């Protein structure tokens, strides 16, 4: 297990790059899905008003 | 004797229909007032008539010639838009000088401005004028000659009573000289013109 975490001496580089990569992808995904929710709510409201 | 007429003019902006089946015609010496609420497409109509918008359905004909195919059409109309075309950081005198070059015609500005009691503004910066004064200076461009059609977009906005009347006088004079005028307005005007059209 320690060997895996150590990554042959390259631990900082490998883990930080993987960390940044997946963190950013997740945040980006989250932003978009939350925006979609918000816009859907907004749109439904305006639609109800028109109806 | 020339005639401007539109045939089944329709215009779409994206998904919105702005103009739907507009039909009118005016002859030399007549004035057409285009009325309508805010956002009803009056400016769009004027921009079609001045060849800025070219993608529309229907036709606009001047003397039975489609204006899109008339190479000389651009020299026949004088468009005064809602924007004043004034450079804020320059004096009125210099602004007029720049207009003279663009319109390719040198006017006797001091005399013409004196007629409208505007000559005291000539050395002031455009940014120091009130909106009404700017509009008056902007309408001063109607003094350029050799146009048979005036297209005026909301010319009476910001104008006081005296200036409104003098503009109406100017339009009447132009009509007497066989000029055509199309102007837009969203309020009732003090004088009845020849034709009215409601969008």
């Amino acid at each position: 297990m320690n060997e895996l975490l150590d990554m042959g001496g390259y631990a900082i580089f490998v883990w930080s790059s993987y960390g940044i990569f997946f963190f950013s992808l997740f945040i980006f995904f989250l932003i978009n899905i939350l925006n979609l929710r918000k816009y859907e709510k907004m749109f439904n409201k305006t639609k109800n008003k028109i109806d | 004797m020339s005639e401007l007429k539109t045939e089944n003019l329709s215009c779409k902006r994206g998904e919105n229909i702005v103009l739907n089946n507009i039909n009118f015609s005016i002859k030399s010496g007549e004035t057409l007032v285009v009325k309508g609420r805010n956002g009803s497409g009056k400016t769009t109509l004027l921009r079609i008539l001045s060849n800025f918008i070219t993608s529309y359905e229907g036709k606009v004909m001047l003397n039975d010639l489609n204006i899109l195919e008339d190479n000389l059409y651009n020299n026949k109309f004088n468009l005064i838009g809602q924007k004043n075309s004034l450079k804020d950081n320059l004096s009125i005198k210099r602004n007029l000088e720049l207009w003279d070059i663009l319109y390719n015609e040198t006017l006797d500005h001091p005399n013409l401005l004196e007629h409208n009691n505007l000559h005291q503004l000539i050395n002031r910066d455009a940014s120091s004028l009130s909106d009404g004064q700017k509009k008056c200076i902007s309408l001063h461009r109607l003094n350029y000659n050799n146009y048979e059609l005036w297209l005026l977009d909301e010319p009476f906005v910001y104008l006081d009573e005296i200036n409104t009347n003098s503009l109406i006088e100017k339009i009447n004079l132009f009509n007497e000289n066989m000029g055509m005028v199309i102007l837009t307005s969203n309020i009732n005007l003090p004088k009845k013109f020849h034709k009215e059209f409601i969008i």
Partner: protein
Amino acid sequence: MSNLIKRDLLLSFYSSANFFFTVSFFILILILIPFAFSTQTDQLKILFKGIVWIALALSIIVTVDRIFNADYEDGNLDIIMQKNKTIEHLIISKYLTYWFIYCLPLLVILPILSFLFYLDYLETIQIFINLFIGSFGMVFIANFVSALTLGAKRTIFLKAIIMIPLFVPFVIFGSDADSWPILLALSMLSFVISIYVTAYGLRLYGE
């Protein structure tokens, strides 16, 4: 066409974009080199060849709003578009005036400046030729960027972000003495693209 050129020159003269100011701008940008780096002769020589291009790019970025945006915002662009026979006439006269006002001053003072930075005659002539050709290409780019961003008011940084990637090839080939043929090819390519794109932008905003 000649009317528009006359009018633009007069306008720039009236609104503090006259020859004296542009020359001062270039000299002041270049004065920063010895302050920022060093006063060693051989270093100054190398830096000068690069920084004239940066000065040119900067002056274009700062003044790009004056090509079409200012006229669009106050309504003069309508008159200009109406009075010019074809839109291509309009665009070409804009190229010429813009180059004349904002790029020519740099070329005029270049001999004096290169003297101050210890360049010899041959190097000066090479830089002059490169700047002459490359500045036209950069002006073409600035024109279509200005036409495309007419609706985006007060966004000088956005315009810089759009323009600088397009300037990169010019700066690369411009700072090398022998690559003027490539520079010429780039300028011609940007001319072809620019004239279409500028016309497209102007027509769109005319609507």
